[in-house]
C-alpha cells in the first residue's frame, strides 16, 4: 500500500509540475498577477508530493519490504540503518527520486524566499524549474519506477554493493545532486532572463547565491567522493580522471566561472551574455554527467546498471533542456545590452581571464572525456585517455589561473594599475618563490611538486595579503581589528575559498612526493618505507555485522618509538559475494601512512604500503572552499534588497 502511495505521489507531482509550467509561463506572458502568484503555492505542492514519494521509498527500505523490486535489488535486512537509508539513493531509480526531491526543494526555496523577486521573473523561473521537474518525473514514471512490486517476494534482499556501504559515500550523492540541481536554478534564471530579454544587476544578485550554493555543494561532493576513492578503493590515489569523476568536475568548473562572472553582472552590469551562457553551460554539463553515468555509453566503477532505453530518454531530456536553452540563447542573447565598460587590467579583466581559463580547462576535460567515446564510435578505435593527457593539458592552463587568482581580488574595478597590485602582493610572490626553493633544497630536483608548493604558497599568501590590505593591518594596525569586524563576510568568504584552493594545491603537491612499496611479509618480519619500519605482527579473522574479514596487524615504528598500529582488512560480504580491501590509514596531518592487505601466500601476506605526504590537505582544502562559499552566502548583502540602490547607481554610472 505504501509503495503505491509513493507511486501516486510521483504522478501527482508530475501533474502539479505540468500545472506550474502552464500557469507560470502563461501568467508571466499575460502579466496576470493572480496566475503568477499561484506558481509559488503550486511549487510548494510539488515539494510536498515529491517529499511524500521519497518518504514512501525510504519507508520500504527501512522495513525491508521485499515485495518492492528496488529494495530486493539494493538492500538487505542485515544492513545497518544508515545504509538502508543511503541505499534509497545508492541505485538508479532511487537516486532519480532524490534528484527530483532536491529540485523540488530548490523550487520551494525560490517560491518561499523569492517574494522580493519581480513577479514575472519569479513565475518564469518557477515555470522553467517545473519544466525540468516534468522531464525527470516523466523519466522516473516511464522508465525507472522505484516502486515496482515483485511477487512472490524473495525471503531477503540482495544487498548493496559493499564498496558503497560507507559513510563517505552515503552523503556523496546527495551533495553532488545539490550541486547539479542547484545549477538547474541558475539555468532557470538564465532562461527566464532570455525570455524577458533583460539581465541587470538585480538579476545578477539573485543568480549569485544560487551559483555559489550549487558550487559549494558540488565542491563538497567532489571532495567527499575523492576522499572516498582514496580510503575505500585502496589504490592510494585520490583522483583518477575517470569519466564519471570528470562528469562532476565539468559542472564544477563551469559553476566556478559562473559565480565569478555573476559578480561582474551584479557589480558592473558587464559580461551579461557570457554569464547567461555559463549558466546554461553549467546545467548542460550537469545533465551531460547524468547522461554519461546512466545511459551505459561508458563504463566506470561509478556507473549505474542501465539500459539503452533509459539512455534515449535522458538524451531526449538533454536535447530539450540544453538544446532548447542554447536555441533560446542564439535567438535572444543578442538583445542583452551590455553596459559597464572596463580596461583589460581591472577586476573585471581579471575575472574575464578567470572565466576564459576555467572554460579552457573545462573544454580540455570535456574533450578528453568524450574523445575516446567518439573515437570508438567513428574511428572504431579503442583508445584510453588517461592521467598523462589530463595532467599535461590542464596544468599549463591551471598555472596562469592560479597566478591570476592572487591578483584578481586586489585589483580595483574598471581600471587598475599594475604597480599598486604588485606592491600589495610582493610578499605573497616571495613566499611562493621561497616555497619552490625550499622544496628543491629538501627534496632534490622535483620540479612538479616544487611548482605546486610555490603555487600553494602564492595563493594562500595572496589571500592573506588581500585580507591584510582590506583591514589595513600594516598601515593602521590599531584599527585593524575593528576593520576586520566590519569587513563584509563575502570578502572573508572569497579569501577563505581562495586560500582553500591553496590548501588543496598544497596537498596535491605533497602527493607528488608520495612513495609506495609492495612487500611480502611473514609474521614477525618488517620492511621500511620513508624512514619508518612496518612490522607484521599478526594475521587473523574478524567478524563484522554483514561481513567477515582477514585482518593484518602492522606495527609502525620510528626508531624505537611506536608511531601507530595499522590494521588493514580484506573483507568478504557473504550476501553479495564481493570482496573489498579496507585500507588502514594513520594520518599525522603532515602525512598519511596507508596500508592495504593483499593476498596471502607462502605463510606470509602481501602488503602494499603508501607514504602520502600532506594527503589530508587535499580534502581539507575542499572543505575550506565550501566553507568560504557558505560564509559568502551568509553575507547580509546576499540577501538582496540592501544593495539594490547601489546596483542601480553602478548601472547608471556605466
Amino acid at each position: 500500500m505504501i509503495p503505491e502511495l509513493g507511486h501516486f505521489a510521483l504522478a501527482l507531482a508530475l501533474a502539479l509540475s505540468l500545472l506550474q509550467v502552464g500557469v507560470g509561463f502563461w501568467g508571466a506572458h499575460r502579466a496576470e498577477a493572480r496566475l503568477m502568484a499561484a506558481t509559488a503555492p503550486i511549487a510548494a505542492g510539488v515539494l510536498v508530493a515529491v517529499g511524500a514519494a521519497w518518504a514512501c521509498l525510504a519507508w520500504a527500505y527501512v522495513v525491508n519490504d521485499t515485495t518492492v523490486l528496488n529494495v530486493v535489488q539494493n538492500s538487505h535486512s542485515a544492513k545497518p540503518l544508515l545504509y538502508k537509508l543511503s541505499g534509497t539513493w545508492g541505485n538508479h531509480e532511487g537516486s532519480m527520486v532524490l534528484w527530483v526531491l532536491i529540485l523540488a526543494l530548490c523550487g520551494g526555496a525560490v517560491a518561499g524566499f523569492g517574494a522580493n523577486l519581480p513577479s514575472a521573473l519569479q513565475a518564469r523561473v518557477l515555470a522553467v524549474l517545473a519544466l525540468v521537474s516534468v522531464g525527470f518525473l516523466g523519466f522516473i514514471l516511464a522508465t525507472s519506477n522505484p516502486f515496482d512490486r515483485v511477487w512472490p517476494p524473495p525471503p531477503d534482499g540482495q544487498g548493496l554493493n559493499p564498496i558503497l556501504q560507507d559513510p563517505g559515500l552515503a552523503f556523496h550523492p546527495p551533495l553532488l545532486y545539490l550541486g547539479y540541481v542547484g545549477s538547474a536554478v541558475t539555468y532557470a534564471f538564465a532562461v527566464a532572463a532570455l525570455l524577458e530579454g533583460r539581465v541587470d544587476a538585480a538579476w545578477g544578485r539573485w543568480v549569485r547565491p544560487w551559483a555559489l550554493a550549487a558550487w559549494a555543494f558540488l565542491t563538497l561532493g567532489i571532495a567527499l567522493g575523492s576522499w572516498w576513492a582514496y580510503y575505500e578503493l585502496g589504490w592510494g590515489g585520490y583522483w583518477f580522471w575517470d569519466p564519471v569523476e570528470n562528469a562532476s568536475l565539468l559542472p564544477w568548473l563551469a559553476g566556478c566561472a559562473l559565480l565569478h562572472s555573476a559578480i561582474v553582472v551584479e557589480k558592473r552590469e558587464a559580461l551579461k551574455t557570457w554569464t547567461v551562457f555559463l549558466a546554461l553551460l553549467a546545467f548542460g554539463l550537469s545533465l551531460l554527467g547524468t547522461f554519461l553515468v546512466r545511459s551505459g555509453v561508458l563504463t566506470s566503477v561509478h556507473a549505474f546498471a542501465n539500459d539503452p532505453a533509459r539512455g534515449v530518454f535522458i538524451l531526449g531530456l538533454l536535447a530539450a533542456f540544453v538544446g532548447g536553452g542554447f536555441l533560446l540563447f542564439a535567438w535572444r542573447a543578442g538583445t542583452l545590452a551590455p553596459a559597464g565598460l572596463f580596461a583589460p587590467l581591472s577586476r573585471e579583466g581579471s575575472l574575464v581571464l578567470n572565466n576564459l581559463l576555467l572554460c579552457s580547462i573545462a573544454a580540455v576535460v570535456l574533450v578528453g572525456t568524450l574523445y575516446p567515446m567518439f573515437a570508438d564510435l567513428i574511428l572504431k578505435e579503442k583508445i584510453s585517455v588517461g592521467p598523462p593527457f589530463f595532467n599535461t593539458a590542464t596544468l599549463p592552463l591551471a598555472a596562469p589561473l592560479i597566478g591570476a587568482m592572487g591578483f584578481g581580488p586586489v585589483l580595483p574595478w574598471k581600471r587598475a594599475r599594475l604597480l599598486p597590485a604588485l606592491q600589495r602582493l610582493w610578499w605573497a610572490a616571495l613566499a611562493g618563490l621561497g616555497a619552490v626553493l625550499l622544496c628543491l633544497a629538501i627534496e632534490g630536483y622535483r620540479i612538479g611538486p616544487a611548482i605546486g608548493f610555490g603555487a600553494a604558497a602564492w595563493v594562500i599568501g595572496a589571500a592573506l595579503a588581500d585580507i591584510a590590505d582590506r583591514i589595513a593591518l600594516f598601515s593602521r594596525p590599531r584599527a585593524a581589528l575593528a576593520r576586520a569586524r566590519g569587513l563584509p563576510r563575502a570578502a572573508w568568504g572569497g579569501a577563505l575559498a581562495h586560500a582553500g584552493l591553496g590548501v588543496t594545491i598544497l596537498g596535491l603537491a605533497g602527493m607528488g612526493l608520495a612513495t609506495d612499496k609492495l612487500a611480502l611479509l611473514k609474521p614477525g618480519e618488517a620492511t621500511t618505507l620513508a624512514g619508518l619500519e612496518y612490522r607484521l605482527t599478526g594475521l587473523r579473522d574478524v567478524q563484522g555485522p554483514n561481513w567477515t574479514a582477514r585482518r593484518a596487524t602492522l606495527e609502525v615504528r620510528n626508531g624505537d618509538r611506536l608511531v601507530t598500529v595499522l590494521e588493514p582488512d580484506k573483507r568478504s560480504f557473504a550476501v553479495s559475494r564481493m570482496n573489498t580491501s579496507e585500507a588502514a590509514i594513520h594520518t599525522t596531518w603532515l602525512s598519511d601512512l596507508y596500508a592495504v592487505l593483499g593476498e596471502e601466500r607462502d605463510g606470509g601476506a602481501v602488503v602494499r604500503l603508501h607514504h602520502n605526504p600532506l594527503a589530508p590537505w587535499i580534502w581539507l582544502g575542499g572543505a575550506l572552499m565550501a566553507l568560504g562559499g557558505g560564509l559568502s552566502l551568509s553575507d547580509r548583502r546576499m540577501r538582496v534588497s540592501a544593495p539594490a540602490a547601489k546596483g542601480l547607481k553602478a548601472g547608471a554610472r556605466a
Partner: protein
Amino acid sequence: MSAMRQHPHPGPPPQGGGGNASPPPLAGGRTHASDQGGGDSATTGGRRRLLLLAPLGVVAAAGVGFYAMLRGLSTGSYDPKGVPSALIGKPAPDFALPPLAGADRPALSAADLRGHNRPVLVNFFASWCVPCVIEHPILMRLAKDGVPILGVAYKDKPADSLGFLQKHGMPYARLGVDQPGRVAIDWGLYGVPETYLVDKDGIIRWRWAGPLTEDTLKAQLQPLLKKYA
C-alpha cells in the same frame, strides 16, 4: 571615482546610435577588448550571431553522436565494455589447468585449444556470477550445434562450480579450474563471464567481456565462426 575616469570613451560610444539601441559588441566575456576597442558594429553583428549559434551547433553534434552510441549499444556495434584485448591476433598464452573433480570432463591446457580442426570458444565462468547464468542457455545451444566450448572455472570453489553445472547443464568439452585466477591474468580477463574465440591455429580472434546474448551471437559470433571455420 568620477565618471570621467572610466577609461575607454567618455561620452557617446563611437559606434554611433548611442547606448542600448546599438548592436552590442562581441560577447563580453570572449573579447573584452572589443568592449572598449570600438570595433565596427556591422561586421561584429554577423560574427556575434554566429558565435551565439556555436553552442547550439556543438550540442547538436554531440547529441547526434550520443544517439548513435545508444543505437550502437543495442545492436552491439558500440560497446564501451569491449576493452581491447592485447591478445587479439596473437597465440593464446601458455597454461595448464587441473580438471574439475566429478565433472567427467578432461582438464584444459593451451595445447587443447588446437587440434579440433575448427575454431573453439574459451569461456571463463563462475558459479557466483549472475550474468553467467544468463548466458548459460546460449552456451548450451552452441555446444549442441557442435561448437567446442572450453570452460575455465574462475575463482570458484570446485564444489560450487560442479553444482552450478549440474543445475544448469554442461556445455563444456573440456574444463579447467583456475581457482587462484592466475591463468585469467595471463589472458587479461576483464571479468566473468568472458568468452574468447580461438581459431584452428590457436590464434585468439575475438573477445567478448560480459554475457553472450542473442544479439552478440547473430551480429558477431556466428559470422566469425563461419569466417574461421
